[in-house]
């Protein structure tokens, strides 16, 4: 286990791609302390900002308010990062494996273009969770992102596969232009959910305003939801999937494309 305690808040956000199990797994204590981080255009040492304990491990613990520490877990393929505090932008971007857990909030671009692994943020996240960077054809390709509270704009924008669960509420344009994948919104979203959607699934456990280009199909309990319910159950999230409790109203769209996506809105019985 390597423990990194933030002792000096950077004046501007710190580019810290080195905070990654793949980077640190085989490094000595001295080598970890000397890892380069970028403060603006200036290169500094990791230990200018963090007190480092431990060495040569693929388990990292980051302590402190790291809201200005960017790129934690970038492109990691293995191991674990636990952040006791907040995390900055681009958390787990390009991730391929392993797990990240954040006790506080994270910022924009969590899990952007990731292709595997698990990211869990217990608090809020910013915008563009699991999304494509500007110009890219698709966002996250696989992996799972769990958000304990609310999310910002463009959750899963252009996503291609993988699963995002927002236990709280998302803002506008959740699933914008998504081409595949599954987004689950625990407490719904604001406007224009699923705009420009091509393929994929958005499940909302709360009523949401829908674009006029989404057409009602039927009320049913899709078989595949049970698979997701089991998978997410092991991760601590309950996805309703039994006919006794309710059904999902299925809306297909976005007809403007025309897309083959779907938005499933949970309708509890007794409503």
């Amino acid at each position, binding site marked *: 286990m390597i423990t990194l305690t933030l002792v000096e808040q950077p004046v501007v956000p710190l580019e810290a791609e080195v905070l990654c199990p793949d980077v640190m797994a085989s490094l000595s204590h001295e080598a970890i302390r000397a890892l380069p981080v970028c403060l603006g255009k200036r290169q500094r040492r990791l230990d200018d900002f963090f007190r480092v304990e431990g060495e040569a491990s693929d388990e990292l613990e980051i302590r402190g308010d790291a809201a200005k520490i960017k790129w934690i877990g970038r492109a990691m393929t293995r191991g674990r990062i636990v952040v006791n505090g907040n995390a900055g932008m681009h958390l787990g971007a390009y991730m391929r494996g392993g797990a990240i857990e954040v006790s506080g909030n994270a910022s924009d671009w969590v899990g952007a273009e990731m292709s595997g692994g698990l990211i869990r943020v217990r608090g809020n996240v910013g915008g563009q969770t699991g999304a494509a960077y500007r110009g890219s054809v698709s966002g996250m390709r*696989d992996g799972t992102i769990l958000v304990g509270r609310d999310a910002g704009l463009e959750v899963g924008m252009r996503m291609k596969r993988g699963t995002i669960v927002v236990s709280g509420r998302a803002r506008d344009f959740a699933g914008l232009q998504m081409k595949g994948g599954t987004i689950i919104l625990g407490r719904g979203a604001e406007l224009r959910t699923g705009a420009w959607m091509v393929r994929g699934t958005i499940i909302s456990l709360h009523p949401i305003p829908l674009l006029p280009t989404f057409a009602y199909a039927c009320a049913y309990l899709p078989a*595949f939801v049970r698979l997701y319910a*089991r998978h997410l159950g092991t991760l601590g999230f309950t996805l309703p999937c039994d006919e006794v409790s309710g059904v999902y109203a299925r809306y297909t769209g976005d007809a403007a494309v025309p897309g083959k996506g779907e938005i499933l809105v949970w309708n509890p019985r007794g409503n």
Partner: protein
Amino acid sequence: MATERNGVRIVDTFAEAFDMRAARVIITAATPAWARTAAQSMAGFATSVIGCKVEAGIEAELLPGETSDGRPGVSVLLFAFNAEGLASRLVDRVGQTVLTCPTTACFDGLPDASERVTVGGVLRHFGDRLQSSKFLDGRRFWRIPVMEGEFLVEEAFGVQDAIGGGNFLILGSDPGAVLAAAEAAVEAMRKVRGAILPFPGGIVRSGSKVGAKRYKNMVASTNEAYCPTVRGRVGVASALPDGVNSALEIVVDGLDRPAIERALGVGIKAACRPGVIEISAGNYGGRLGKHHFGLHELLQG
């Protein structure tokens, strides 16, 4: 040389079984009854690869906790000589008997097998481009729109090496006693996971020999050495000891050697009952199949 158990003579011989490839299909449904209905339909007319192109049977009933979607289910094992054959049979059978059956979903039961064949990936075309897929945990599932709602079927199914043709013969004093012994054997063998009994009720009343002696161009013909009514005829060498008036065969296919050993073991022990005179087994002198199951060794387990 023979051993005895419960007064039944166990011939010191072996069953000769063959290399096969197998797949496992898990069918879930709203109720155990519907899962069983689909499974029985799927595993029907699948007694021997020779005439049916595949051998299949119900392996076990599964509890909701044991299935991917948390519903009651049934697992079916299918055996054929090669993966291409299995693939075609799976597509045909899942398409005609599981897709068509209310409330079912269909999953691969050999997720660790490295060789995969495409099943859902072919059946998806039934959706006429209205189908969609979901990718979860490295597995792809197809959702095919049907009148009832949606049929969920896994894209690819695993294929593994397996063994087919494990067997033993029950020789007894009369058909009733032999059948009762065979039924008892079947009841015990059905509890063994990894093995299935492809024949009706698990029992073969018409065990066969390779080819024919008196006709040309036959794949198989009656195993005259064990047929009681032709004992003593000119040109027939009978293997039936004195007192035997009827014989039945139990055939078992299994995913591996231990499964077949377990199944044969519990089956033979259950068949050693009053009215049974001898337990034997079928083989070709060890020349055709590479898996040999010695009856004495099985009873030591």
